[in-house]
Structure formats: structure tokens, C-alpha cells
């Protein structure tokens, strides 16, 4: 974990601004969705894609800090249906991989409709939440 964090910090120092230039956060994920925040960019794909209502899925994602921003101390993935005011019935587990990549296991959208998938990226100075609205058939 410490090695991964150090590597992520080192990479953050040499990477260009995540939102600019030819390089794009999460290029290695292929056709990833990108969520742009003030401090971080998150690129993610789901497996399977598209998400199927009532079936577990995983989220593979990369967190790219903007220039001068520290890598997050903690990363949390969750989801909820704002229209119904409920979340998932399952708590995802996040496993850190190499090079700032993560995999969130155990998500399940148990109803069709509009879900907000959220990434909470926290440091000692605060949390940035990036949200993607997903329509599940």
C-alpha cells in the first residue's frame, strides 16, 4: 500500500495536468468514462458494460490528481437512486492495484432507473465527490 501510494505520488509529480494535452487519465482502461473535478479526474469502466439491473458488477477506475494535488488518502465508491432516496443494498470493497488503479467489487443496482455513481476522494484537507448519472435498463 505504501509502495503504491509512493508510486502514485511520484507519477502525479511527472504527469501533465490530467485534463489537458494528448495524455488522458485512464487511457489504459480503453473506452473509459471520465469525471472531471477541481482536484481529481476519475476514469472508469464497469464490468460488465453495460450494467445489468440485478447483477453484480465491478468498477475499474484510475484516479488522476490535478497538478499539485496530492493523491487521495482514501477512495470510496457508492451509488444511490436520487428519485427513490435509497442506495445499494451492498457495500463495495475497493482494492488498490498498481499505478493509481483501483477495482471496486460487489456493486449491484437492484432496480432499473437512474443511479448516481459516486467517487469520494479524500485527503486530510477535504473530500471531492465526482458523480456520474447512469441510466440502467
Amino acid at each position: 500500500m505504501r509502495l503504491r501510494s509512493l508510486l502514485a505520488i511520484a507519477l502525479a509529480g511527472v504527469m501533465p495536468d490530467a485534463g489537458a494535452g494528448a495524455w488522458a487519465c485512464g487511457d489504459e482502461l480503453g473506452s473509459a468514462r471520465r469525471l472531471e473535478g477541481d482536484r481529481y479526474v476519475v476514469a472508469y469502466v464497469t464490468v460488465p458494460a453495460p450494467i445489468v439491473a440485478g447483477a453484480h458488477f465491478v468498477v475499474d477506475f484510475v484516479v488522476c490528481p490535478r497538478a499539485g494535488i496530492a493523491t487521495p488518502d482514501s477512495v470510496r465508491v457508492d451509488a444511490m437512486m436520487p428519485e427513490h432516496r435509497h442506495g445499494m443494498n451492498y457495500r463495495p470493497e475497493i482494492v488498490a492495484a498498481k499505478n493509481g488503479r483501483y477495482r471496486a467489487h460487489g456493486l449491484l443496482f437492484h432496480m432499473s432507473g437512474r443511479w448516481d455513481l459516486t467517487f469520494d476522494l479524500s485527503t486530510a484537507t477535504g473530500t471531492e465527490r465526482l458523480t456520474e448519472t447512469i441510466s440502467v435498463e
Partner: protein
Amino acid sequence: MSARGTFVVIAACIVATAMAPQAGVMAQPGASDFPEAEALKRILQLGPWPVAARNDPSNRVSGNADAVAFGAALFIDTRLSGSQRIACATCHRPDRAFTDGRDRGVGAARGDRNTLTLLDVAGQRWYGWDGANDSLWSQSLRPIVDSREMNGDLARLAALVRSDAALRQHYVRTFGSAPGTRDDRIAVDSAKAIAAYVETLRSTRTAFDDYRDALARGDVSTASRYPTAARRGLALFVGKGRCDLCHSGPRFSNGEFHDVGVPFFAERTRVDSGRYDGIRRLQASPYNLLGAFNDDPARSTATSTRHVSLAHRNYGEFRVPSLRNVARTAPYMHDGSLATLRHVIRHYSDLDEDRLHADGESILRPLRLSDVDIDDLVAFLETLTSAGPP
């Protein structure tokens, strides 16, 4: 995701176009009343039926014919119970769609909950009204040892299988060796045989399935045979009623848990907390899919058990039951408190939102249905009855 979504919408539009009224094509009254594209899309998601049968990897004898025969024998054997008078089939009666027709099950004592059907239960994520079990075999063991149901125990069951010549022979055929010395292992194996039998209890196709498939292939003639009242009821089901939010997919259930405003007092001074206690009992059970009795080393069906989350809002939630053959499984709700389908629909029509116990969940709202609407919904639900046995 978007590609698939686009395909579905396009397919729906194509079907809708194909089903559009054409002079000289539709001979029967009401045949021009085809669903709009959005409703059609939602209707198509309620099938096709049957779903493909898959063996349960957590049960090494799932799909095994010898196990099915062993399980069928155990299912009707009253010696599994403490009183020697109660079998699985006592409450799960084949002539009542594997329910008992009572408001609450009665075994060694009167229970708190309505007896669920055993039809089409193979492959569910959770079992029972509270989902305290995550496999059909663990659910099959539960009533045998429950003091208010069959009131048996592991030692009694194991001794019976060891000593009875016929059951012992079934065991050897099914598992390839004589029953050993561990009572819990023999009891769980017996429950796995019962599960193998129960997996075979599948409902046949319904009038709704014929209608749904006719819509899918653009078969105007067949679709037009579906009763007009049922068609209006179905339109309410996927439209104003939004019933398919929870009663979704070919099983007419999302397999999860909701608070639908039914009081959760099992008695005046005792509460049935439903899913809340179900999760706690699941997590404490040695028979859950994370435990040693799971025959699948990869734990490939244990994801839900590993990640399920206990929350205060689970209090008073109960599992969404399938609606297949619902007209044959009265009375209704987790406590059997509603006698007829008409009572159930009226419950949702007149729902008192203040009585909902969930922490902020807002799926339900009073539907304010007319008497005709209620008749139409009943007509639709009756078309979910299998045409043939079981």
C-alpha cells in the same frame, strides 16, 4: 451501455411499428390497443419465460437425478420433524402451488409469516421473506431445525438417514459413499438433496408469456388474443403503478427487500424486523455461502453474501415475492394479512405514506386506483397463472 440501450429502444420502436394497426390484419376487437414504445420496452423485460435452468455450484448434487429422487423422498417424509407428523410438503402443498393457503404457516407452532411458494425458486439470490439464507440448500435445512416449523435437529436427521435402509441407499447413490459420522455434514447433504428436488419445481408458461413473446416478434394475431382487461392492467403495472420497479424481470421480482407499509408487528408486543434480522442471521450462519459447507471452492455465488450491508432502513423490509402463479398463492404479504389480490391492490392504491417505516425511501405512493383499474390489474395478474401443472 448506451449501445445496448439504443438497441433496446430501437427494437421496441420496431416492434411498436410492426404492431401498429393495419387494415385487414387485426380481426379481433382491442387488437389496435398496443402498448406505446416505453411500455413495450418494460413489458418485454418481463420475459422471456422460462429462464434457463443452471445448476447451483454451491451444491455438488444440484441437477443430479439421484439427488432429485432422494430430495423428493425427504420432502414428504414426516420423520424429519420432531413430532414425526410434519413434512416439508405439509406446508408446501403441491396442490396449492407449494403453499398452504393459510395466512401464516403452522408447523410445530403458528409462525409469523406466510408460506412462500417453492415454484421457480432455483437461482434466487436470497431465500425466505427476510433473506436469512443465501442458497436453496441452506434454506431447505432451516425449517427442519426451526422449533416452530418442523422442530427437528441435525442429529435426528443424520440418524434417520444412517438407519433407514431406503434413505441410506438414496444417500449412497447420491453422494457415492455411506453417510459418515458427522451429523452436520449428513444433514447438510440431505438439505442439498432436497434443494436438488426443489430446483425442479418450475412453473410453465402463462397467457402473459404468450402475449409478451407475441409483442417481441410482432405477431399481431397472437397478441390480439390477450384479454383486453389484462392488457389494461398490464399497462397500469408498467405505467402509473410502476409495479415493475420491484416486480421486475421474468421472475417478477428484483430479489431484494422493501418496506411496503405492511405493519411488522408479529404480535401486539412483538416485532418482526424482517430483513434487518435476516442479514444478522445470515452473517452468523455456519451454512452461508462463505462457510465450509459451500461446495464451490471459488465461492462464485457468494458475492452478495460477502458484500451485503446491514442498515437501519432494513428494519421492516421483506423480500419482493415473484408474481408468477400469484393467483394461486393467497393470502398475501409477509404476514398473510391480505386475503385476496384485490385487497393487495387496494393496499397499494390507498397506501398511507406516513406508515412506511423506511428511512426516506420513496418508491411507493398511493395509486388512487378506480374500481375498474383494480379489476384490470387483477385480470392481468391472473394471466400470470401457468397454463399447465404444476
